[in-house]
Structure formats: structure tokens, C-alpha cells
């Protein structure tokens, strides 16, 4: 497997960089979000917003703020797209079609960044920077904020106060996302990413055949696109575009940006509950699942099974030379294991097994390591389910982090797990039952089913990547996928906040010799197994119709 050696090197450097970055970053996020004092800049902002930063909210109050902020975000982004032709910086583009504008507004506010449009020919400067990029920051900050609330639910006792939404979002945005994005953007520019405000430059072409070279504030958007696990590219071909991802090493930087915050969140969790070992256990589950999945995707793509890859002698269709097949596969795994959805190669051209693995990554609910914030709260819900399962085995009331997991908690956790598959499968079944939709599917047979399954899995799990052969720009798909994104983001969030509320009001029970320890390898293995079993039970039937049928 000599072809795999450089990819092994890529992964080794990536892991080394993550090990170096995640602990200090986790400590930084912890420091920023638990600081008692408000900085002068923050006070100014709170005054402007009109909120009292020292008033903490209940879970319901927090949820109302999340929903209000997101609703306003959707409306504003929709309006900005519809009015872009009247505003400056429109690049000469028309108002965005209403169905596309709805889909895009929901998509960016829900941290999905599914794109049914082609960036370079639809969105002007203003929409890209003041609309889309802003939601890249804010949707990421909201995700982290909700995760913080769940952790507070475990950490606090007999209170119904869980923090202040505006304070959390402001601090995460200003002191975590913004500085890292500035650094990331400058590093990407050093590699060749563009950052300008020109529309297009007409080049004469080497052969005299002119070429329109596009411009834009690409690097600044690229950094937060990956850092906030958003994924919406400035251009149609996303991170495959040489202006977004110009070299083999910027590719490494992008994967690092994608994984950095999600892998730091367990540290934040460990520090907040006052026991870093708990964070390490969660990190171990995430890292184990991520490594398994990445290895599978890379090996399958390097082997290149299937008719066309065999004819080619490699999996080069839909890959750029500078990344090669191996590094492209690592990127694909990273983007689906988190809720990112940016792509540097085209997943539709992946082998049946490799593409199936990418669908599975998203179906797992993106918890290994998952989206910024959403990965941590997803994994903690799975941990709650695991202690419940363990409790059933030995006949004891389950506990996690000193909190009894009672009927209410387990109901909320189960609902959390069931919501996304239910939305996904219902929407998929409805779509396939409506006759007019078949025309959107590019390929017949199992691969066509995979295209559709990928789209609904991606939308409902707020990933945003695609088997892009699907002609997703139809009124039906724009609307229904938009609904999937909305429900798939906010129903689980509300359930998580409710869970946090129910935990925070409970008192802490002391650990006894009968308490199932949640920092041991046994627990790590059990959470991993519970995750795989739950997902397999839910998704095997639909996977059998698509990727599995194609692979056989």
C-alpha cells in the first residue's frame, strides 16, 4: 500500500497538530465562557443590544432567545438575498429566486450550509460577506452556546438558571471564532487564497482565449466556513476551488480548522464539570470513531473499487491533482464527521463503500467529533443513553456526573436521538412518493437513491455536503430540505436545553461503589458501541437500498 504512505503522513501531522492545539484551545474557550467580569467592549455591546448580562436565563428563556435570534437571522438573510440587486456590491447579479433564498437563509442560520445555488454566479459581495459569512459565525456561536448550557446542567445543582444566551454568543464570537478566523484567513492568503473586492478580471488567456477570473472576499469566508463547521463555499466547487484551497498544505490547514473546535469541546466540558477525566473519556469516544471512519474511507478510495475507478486505475474522477485521492478522502471524512459539509472532492464520484461511509458519518448524528457545540451535546446525549443501558443491565438507577438519570431525562435523550432520523426518513419517503421529484435525480438505480438519501441525511443533520448529482434546485427540494434543516437543528436543540434544565434543578448524588464509572475504557467502548448499534438499527434499511445495493 505504498500509495497510502503519504496519506498516512498527512493524517499523522493532522493528529499531531490537533493534540497540540486542542488542549490550550479548550482551556481558552473555558476561560472565555466562564469569566465573571464583563469587558468594556462586551458591556458596550450588551447596552447596544439592550440586554442585562448578569441576568441568567432558565432553559425556556434561553431557548426563546436561541429561536428569536435564529428567526431574525433567517428573515434578514432572506431579505438581503431578495434585495441584493438594489444594494451595493451586487456584482451585477439579480435578486435571488425566493425558493433558493429561503433554502439558503435557513441553510446558513442552521449551520448546515447546504447550497442549491452556484456561489460565483448568484451571490454578490454584500450577500457573501454581510449575510452568509455573518451567519457562519453566529450559527457556530449558537451551537457552542447550547453545548455550554447542557454542560452547565450537569455542573450546577438545584438551580433553574443556566446562563445568558447573549453573553455566551458574544463571548464565543468575539474571543474564540473571530481571532481564529483572522489567523486562518491570513494563513490561507499566504497559501494563495484570494481576498479582494473586485468583480472579475478578464485575462487574455495563454492561447488568446479569454477567461473571466472571479474575485471576492474569499479567504475571510473560507476561514470561518471551516472553523465554524459551516461548509458553505464561496464558489460552487467549494474547497476544491484553487482560490479557496490553493495548495496541498492549505488543504491540511482547512482540515485542521474543521476539526479544531469540535475536538476542543470535550476539554471545555471536563473543566466545567470539574473533572477533566470526564472530558478525556468523551474525547476518546470521538477520536476512536473518527479514526475508524477515516481509515475506512481512505482505504476504500485508495483501493478504488467499481467499474469506472478500475477503468481509470485510480479514483481520480472528481479530485484535483494537488490533493490526490488520499488527502481528498481524509477531507471528505472530516467534513462529514463534523457538521461541516465543505468539500474538496466530489462525493458523488466516491466508491459505493466510501460514499456509503460518508452517509453513515452524517447519520451517526455527527458526534465524532461533530459540529462546533452540536458534536459535544450530541455525544453527551449518547452518554446519557449509555448509562441508562448500563443501568438496565445491572438493575440500578443510572447516574451520570452525579446526576440521576430518571424518566424525564431518558425521555428527552431518546426523543433527541429519534427526532433527526424521523424527520429525515419521513421527508425522504414523502419526496420519493411525489412523482415529479424523480426528474431531479441524475442517476438511475441504487446510486440515484444514494443521491437522495445523502441530500436528506445532509440537510437533517445540518451537514450541507451533497452527492451533487442531485438537481436540488427545484421548488420542492428547496422547500422540504429547508424544513428538514430547520427541524433538524432546532428540535434537538430545544430537547437539549430542556434536558439541561431538568438536570440543573436536580441535586447531586454522591458517587458510591455501585456507581458506573464514566471515565474508564469500558465506558468509552460502551458509548461507541451504543452509538453504532443505535445508528445501524435506524439506518440499515435505507442504506441497503442505496450504497449497499450498489456495492454488491
Amino acid at each position, binding site marked *: 500500500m505504498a500509495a497510502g504512505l503519504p496519506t498516512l503522513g498527512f493524517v499523522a501531522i493532522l493528529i499531531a497538530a490537533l493534540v497540540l492545539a486542542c488542549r490550550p484551545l479548550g482551556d481558552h474557550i473555558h476561560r472565555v465562557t466562564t469569566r465573571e467580569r464583563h469587558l468594556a467592549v462586551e458591556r458596550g455591546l450588551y447596552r447596544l443590544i439592550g440586554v442585562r448580562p448578569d441576568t441568567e436565563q432558565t432553559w425556556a428563556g434561553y431557548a426563546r432567545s436561541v429561536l428569536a435570534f435564529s428567526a431574525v437571522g433567517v428573515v434578514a438573510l432572506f431579505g438581503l438575498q431578495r434585495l441584493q440587486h438594489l444594494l451595493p456590491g451586487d456584482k451585477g447579479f439579480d435578486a435571488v429566486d425566493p425558493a433558493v433564498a429561503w433554502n439558503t437563509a435557513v441553510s446558513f442560520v442552521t449551520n448546515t450550509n447546504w447550497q442549491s445555488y452556484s456561489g460565483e*454566479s448568484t451571490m454578490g459581495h454584500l450577500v457573501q460577506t454581510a449575510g452568509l459569512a455573518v451567519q457562519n459565525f453566529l450559527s457556530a456561536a449558537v451551537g457552542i452556546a447550547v453545548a455550554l448550557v447542557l454542560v452547565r446542567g450537569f455542573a450546577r445543582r438545584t438551580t433553574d438558571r443556566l446562563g445568558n444566551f447573549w453573553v455566551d454568543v458574544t463571548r464565543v464570537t468575539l474571543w474564540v471564532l473571530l481571532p481564529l478566523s483572522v489567523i486562518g484567513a491570513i494563513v490561507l492568503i499566504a497559501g494563495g487564497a484570494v481576498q479582494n473586492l473586485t468583480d472579475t478580471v478578464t485575462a487574455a*488567456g495563454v492561447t488568446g*482565449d479569454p477567461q473571466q477570473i472571479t474575485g471576492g472576499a474569499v*479567504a475571510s469566508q473560507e476561514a470561518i466556513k471551516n472553523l465554524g463547521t459551516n461548509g458553505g463555499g464561496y464558489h460552487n466547487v467549494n474547497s476544491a476551488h484553487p482560490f479557496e484551497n490553493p495548495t496541498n498544505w492549505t488543504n491540511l490547514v482547512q482540515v485542521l480548522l474543521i476539526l479544531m473546535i469540535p475536538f476542543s469541546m470535550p476539554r471545555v466540558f471536563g473543566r466545567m464539570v470539574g473533572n477533566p477525566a470526564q472530558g478525556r473519556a468523551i474525547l476518546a469516544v470521538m477520536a476512536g470513531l473518527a479514526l475508524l471512519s477515516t481509515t475506512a474511507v481512505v482505504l476504500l478510495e485508495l483501493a478504488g473499487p467499481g*467499474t469506472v475507478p478500475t477503468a481509470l*486505475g485510480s479514483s481520480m474522477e472528481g479530485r484535483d491533482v494537488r*490533493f490526490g485521492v488520499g*488527502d481528498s478522502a481524509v477531507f471528505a471524512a472530516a467534513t462529514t464527521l463534523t457538521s461541516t459539509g465543505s468539500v474538496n472532492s*466530489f462525493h458523488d464520484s466516491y466508491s459505493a463503500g466510501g460514499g456509503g461511509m460518508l452517509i453513515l458519518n452524517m447519520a451517526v448524528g455527527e458526534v465524532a467529533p461533530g459540529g462546533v457545540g452540536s458534536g459535544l451535546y450530541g455525544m453527551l446525549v449518547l452518554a446519557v443513553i449509555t448509562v441508562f443501558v448500563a443501568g438496565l443491565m445491572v438493575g440500578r438507577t443510572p447516574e451520570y456526573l452525579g446526576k440521576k438519570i430518571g424518566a424525564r431525562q431518558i425521555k428527552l435523550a431518546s426523543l433527541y436521538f429519534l427526532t433527526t432520523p424521523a424527520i429525515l426518513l419521513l421527508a425522504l419517503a414523502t419526496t420519493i412518493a411525489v412523482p415529479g421529484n424523480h426528474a431531479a435525480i441524475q442517476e438511475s438505480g441504487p446510486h440515484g437513491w444514494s443521491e437522495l438519501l445523502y441530500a436528506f441525511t445532509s440537510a437533517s443533520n445540518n451537514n450541507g455536503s451533497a452527492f451533487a448529482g442531485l438537481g436540488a434546485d427545484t421548488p420542492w427540494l428547496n422547500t422540504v430540505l429547508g424544513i428538514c434543516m430547520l427541524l433538524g437543528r432546532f428540535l434537538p436543540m430545544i430537547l437539549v436545553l430542556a434536558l439541561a434544565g431538568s438536570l440543573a434543578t436536580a441535586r447531586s448524588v454522591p458517587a458510591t461503589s455501585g456507581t458506573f464509572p464514566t471515565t474508564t475504557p469500558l465506558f468509552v467502548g460502551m458509548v461507541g458501541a451504543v452509538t453504532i448499534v443505535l445508528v445501524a438499527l435506524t439506518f440499515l434499511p435505507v442504506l441497503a437500498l442505496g450504497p449497499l445495493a*450498489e456495492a454488491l
Partner: protein
Amino acid sequence: MKRGAFSSHLAALRALLAMTVVLGVAYPLGVTLVAQLPGLRDNAAGSLITDADGEVVGSELIGQSFTDAAGEPIVTYFQSRPSMAADDTGAPYDPTATAASNLGPEHVVDTLPDPELGWEGDENASMSLLTRVCSRSFEVGRLENVDGSRPYCAESGGSAVGAVLGVYHSEGVRGTVTRVVSLNESCDTVTEPFITEYRGVTVECAVYGEDHSGAVPVPVAGDAPADPVVPADAVAASASGLDPHISVEYARLQAPRVAAERGVPEGVVNALIDAHTTGRSLWVLGDPGVNVVTLNLALDRDHPVTSAGR
């Protein structure tokens, strides 16, 4: 309650406006300003290449096609990879229409065109990924004077197609074989299919308009070498549609032709290839690639095509 909901939406609106100023205006403009520093400025502007007169000829990062108006390769230039970045009517390598093929590994059956209209004229026709790969490989083989054959490809009607049979069985997908059609070979372009017999049944060519969705598609590997002479990147479309690079192998394959057409020793061309090859950063990142745009520009500068050579 009602007042609460109203005030939280008002706060949300104010927060969004404040954040838009910071994140949507100050941040991108700030980064754009930093990008004006020497060392970053040219990158931020798009790594543009200018000629002696200061006119922009292209970008180092954005591939170009080196074909004539009819889409045929210009033989004095190194050729880029196949690109799907084109709108319905335009030429490839169009940065305003970036795209990949998005076709899967089992996209192997063509929808044949109306013989009256041909591939270009019939908008319902669609060429499978496999046939695209096979025909490109055949063309590259002919251009570079090497063997263009590949597994699952068959020479057919002056080009190559995906070697795929549609096999009918007595009971759906099981039972004895009753009829076999070479799905990608139209009776209008071939006299006999690439294979005469399959499991004792004579293979037919495909009649335009006949529906073979009831047949089981069976790709036939054939006897082409598993490691074809024409490299994969030469016949597979890139992800961006703007890939400025080709593999070193594909560049070496083209070197003898370019050298001969320009009347330059092959060693000189090979040295230029080396000079325009980007290796793996840190020894392991990515794959080595030869920048076709800068390579061809260097050729034009150092070894221009004389009118006699043309």
C-alpha cells in the same frame, strides 16, 4: 409573555445588526487590508500572471484549456485535464461556472443520441462516465501515439466506448441468457459490437430508442492492461473544473509531442516540466503536480513556435 417575546426579538435584531457590523463589514475589510501587505498582496489579487505589456494572461492557480475553437488540442501545448466547468454552451475552464461531473463509479450506460442529431444536437442524450473516460483515453492515445486502451473500454466506431452489455435473462435477473445488447454501441455507428458472443448468445448493437432498462448491465473488463499507459488524471474530470495541474506522468507522456512540435530537444522540455512541478509539502502532503499554465507560458517565452514549425 407577549412582551417577553417581543423584547427578545428586538434584542435579537439589535444583536444581529451589531454583529453584522463587526463580522460582516469590519472583519472582511480588515482581512482585505492586511492582505495588502507585500507578500500577501499578489496572492489576494488572484496570483495573476501578466505578460511583458502588463496585460493579464491568466492566474497561476486557475487552469486553462489549450484547445482551438473546435475544442481540438493545440499540439504545441501541454494539455490540461478534462474539466466540467462550463455552462451549457461555453468552453471548459470557465471560472464563472465551476463544477465537477458528479457521476458515480457505476455510471456506465449511455443514453444514445438520435442519429439524425448526434451527441451535440440531441439534448436527451447523455454520455456515461465510463464512455467519457474511454473516449478521452482513446483520443489521448492517438494524440500522443501510445496505447489508449483501458479496462472496461472497447474501441468502437473510430473512438472508444464503455464496454457494457445489457443481458436479458429468462426470469428477470436469473435463468438462462436470452438476449445480449452492447448498450453503448449504436447500430448507426458500428457494424459489429466489440464482442460477438456472450454466454453462447450473439451480441447485438443497440438500436436508437429501444429501452434496455430491463436488462442487467454487465461491464466487460477485456484484456487491456490494468495499469493503462494514459494516466488517470488525463481522462478523469477534476473536482474544481479549474485544476491547474496534471500529474508528472501525464506531463512526461506529452513531452515528446511538444518537443517535436516546437523543434526543441526533449531533455529541454523535461527540464521545464521539472521546473514547473510542485512536490509534496513536508514530503507527504498531497500529490505532485505540474502546473500546465505556467509550463506552457514558459514554453512560449523560451521556445516560441516559429511560423515554419507551425
